[in-house]
């Protein structure tokens, strides 16, 4: 069938600058560029371009640029270009449209409507350059009360995991990203004193040495889950849902299950790795409690158990159930959370923004007097240190980042992770592509990002006259709303700026 899909992007090649070195030909895994020897010319097939910018950035003479295809449709705010393209694609294939990364639709971004406070004259600001400023956060369940006799704490404290900055790397499985990418995350987390997350694809042998800074996932497919895997980890995470695809399962296509991926997931090479939508042993909060304690028993109560859910309408009630089911940590993943592959219709329409979810979960747990029983990690499209600090002021203990970490490593958000082709060597298992990601450099870039954000958080904290991140948690008086409705402010528990 002849495709009626027009190219999304257009490649502009400055022929005067092009030296026909063919770097672009070699760099593009989508095979956009070809070299015609007879004519001595480099040609480009616009239809295959995904706008990942690899050729643009690697062209030694800056001869290339990629622009949006200026093909004009008749103006129509309802029938936008993307809508028309999707219909054409489905008319031609009859399939579910896949995508990668997070929701790119123009839902309100509440972070951009929340502003932070700063001290002026009274309660003077603190200068983080000269005074100690603490970002250390302890993840884990805190007891309802402490019994102290003499110099000793008599209360048995559940396992606590200190992190040196309230930022962790969110789950990205081996299979969805390359081993080099996981290696960089693991090393950066270890060096900086935070944690990274295996996702549901198991833990590669080479990464076991980073176990003490690793969160391992137990998801519905139970891929690669066995006693050594559980014991290797610092934190165990039961993955119930993901912000990019709440309510649906996962599906790593057989083509991506290479030998090393098959070893780590412990499934035969080339078979589909299907993660069912539910855990078939969890149909209730009681069942969830059973798995929480199964994991605790399996590791002799040494490790905190986290339960990760997508932020949905009833998150607050569900979170209360999770806390009562014995979890030590709740991870909440919002509407803008990323993915290696998800149906676009789900990614773009299911779930609620993380800002609202953090506020409602924190409020509910406080009302019920059980906020201390769990740490709350928020996830889903955190773009900057400002988003992080606002999340903590709303009530989160810490924040998971993944998209930002990928961008730090080189990702340009072309949203083609589900194809298995990634010109930046991140979301691919193709050895020719994945060796492009130098794990040493990627580690350094990740550490730089964590350092930059942490310094900024200290500056903002100091400005508010606070010297420990723990003092900001849930302190919503340090936030004010700009341009929100009363209903939104009520959910966020934040007052109108200036009022």
């Amino acid at each position: 069938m002849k495709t009626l899909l027009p190219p999304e992007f257009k490649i502009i090649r400055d022929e005067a600058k092009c030296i026909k070195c063919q770097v672009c030909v070699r760099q593009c895994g989508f095979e956009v560029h070809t070299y015609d020897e007879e004519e001595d010319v480099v040609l480009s097939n616009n239809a295959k371009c995904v706008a990942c910018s690899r050729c643009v950035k690697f062209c030694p003479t800056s001869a290339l640029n990629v622009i949006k295809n200026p093909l004009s449709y008749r103006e129509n705010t309802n029938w936008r270009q993307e809508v028309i393209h999707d219909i054409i694609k489905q008319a031609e294939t009859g399939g579910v449209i896949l995508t990668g990364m997070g929701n790119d639709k123009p839902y309100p971004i509440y972070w951009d409507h929340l502003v932070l406070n700063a001290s002026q004259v009274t309660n003077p600001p603190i200068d983080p350059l000269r005074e100690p400023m603490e970002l250390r956060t302890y993840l884990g369940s805190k007891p309802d009360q402490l019994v102290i006799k003499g110099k000793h704490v008599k209360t048995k404290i559940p396992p606590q995991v200190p992190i040196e900055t309230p930022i962790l790397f969110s789950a990205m499985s081996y299979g969805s990203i390359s081993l080099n990418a996981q290696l960089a995350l693991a090393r950066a987390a270890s060096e900086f004193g935070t944690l990274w997350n295996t996702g549901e694809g198991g833990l590669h042998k080479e990464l076991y040495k980073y176990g003490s800074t690793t969160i391992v996932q137990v998801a519905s497919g139970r891929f690669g889950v066995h006693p050594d895997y559980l014991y290797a980890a610092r934190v165990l995470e039961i993955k119930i849902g993901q912000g990019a695809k709440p309510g649906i399962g996962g599906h790593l296509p057989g083509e991506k299950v290479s030998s090393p991926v098959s070893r780590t997931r412990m499934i035969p090479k080339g078979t589909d790795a299907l993660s069912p939508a539910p855990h078939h042993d969890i149909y209730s909060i009681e069942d969830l409690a059973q798995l929480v304690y199964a994991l605790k028993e399996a590791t002799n109560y040494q490790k905190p158990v986290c339960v990760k859910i997508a932020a949905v309408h009833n998150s607050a009630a569900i979170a209360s159930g999770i806390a009562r089911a014995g979890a030590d940590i709740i991870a909440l993943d919002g509407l803008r959370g990323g993915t290696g592959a998800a149906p676009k219709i789900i990614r773009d329409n299911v779930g609620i923004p993380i800002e609202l979810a953090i506020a409602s979960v924190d409020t509910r747990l406080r009302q019920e007097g059980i906020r201390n029983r769990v740490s709350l990690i928020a996830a889903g499209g955190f773009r900057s240190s400002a988003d992080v600090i606002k999340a903590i002021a709303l009530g989160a203990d810490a924040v998971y980042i993944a998209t930002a970490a990928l961008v730090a490593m080189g990702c340009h958000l072309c949203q083609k992770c589900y194809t298995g082709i990634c010109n930046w060597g991140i979301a691919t298992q193709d050895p020719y592509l994945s060796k492009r990601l130098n794990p040493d450099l990627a580690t350094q870039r990740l550490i730089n990002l964590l350092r930059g954000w942490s310094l900024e958080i200290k500056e903002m904290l100091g400005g508010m006259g606070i010297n420990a991140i723990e003092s900001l948690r849930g302190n919503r008086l340090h936030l004010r709303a700009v341009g929100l409705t009363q209903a939104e402010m009520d959910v966020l528990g934040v007052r109108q700026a200036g009022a």
Partner: protein
Amino acid sequence: MKQTVKVKPSTNEKIVVDAKGKDTKQLNEILRQLVAQGHTHIELKNVFGQRYIGTDLRKPVQIDIYGTPGNDLGSFIEGPRIVVHGNAQDGCGNTMNDGKIVIHGHAGDITGFAMRGGKIFVRDDVGYRVAIHMKEYKGKKPVLVIGGTAQDFLGEYIAGGILIVLGLTLKRDEKHRANFIGTGMHGGVIYLRGNVAPHQLGKEVSILKLTKEDLRELRAYVEEFASHFHFDSEEIMREKFIKLLPLTLRPYGKLYAY
């Protein structure tokens, strides 16, 4: 509360623990301590609903259970051999990696869920969603043999391993009652003795006749089953079996537009 172990060693180096009045955590802590002390054969008396028995032992110890163990018996195990002299509840062998569980009675829902290795033998019937997402990998090939019959969703999403249902608790000419057998199946094999109608099977499953190699494989496990429960394996093998295989290893390969 930490429990101190007060048990009398009996003959054959078997050690007997009375589980009466002990909660899940206490009982499992006792088991950990006994195994750490080097005991290899433990008998649990008066077990009454304690969960996760056998988890976190990680040695090829033998555990005999009298009474009724609770949910998730032997979850995540890698080594222990557990014999239940009675019925087991839900989640028996959940995500087990290696070892053996023998149940002289019934087992509940999700028996053998996501198991990747080891063997489970159930003398009588099992509940719903049994053997969901069983999978195999290299040397690891889980085997689950059910002497009786099962409820719905038997072998759903099964990705590897061998699931055998013998139907010994059915009356003559009585059909298996499970629906959605092998829905989403994309690996492994199910051998079923007795009758099922095509509508009881998931749409990803095909019915095949057993080959000689299949029969050889099946016979070995049926003999092992029969030896545990004193059945006559020849008599079991005399009835017709059917073999269920996935139609494709990529059941959902054509679902997406790229």
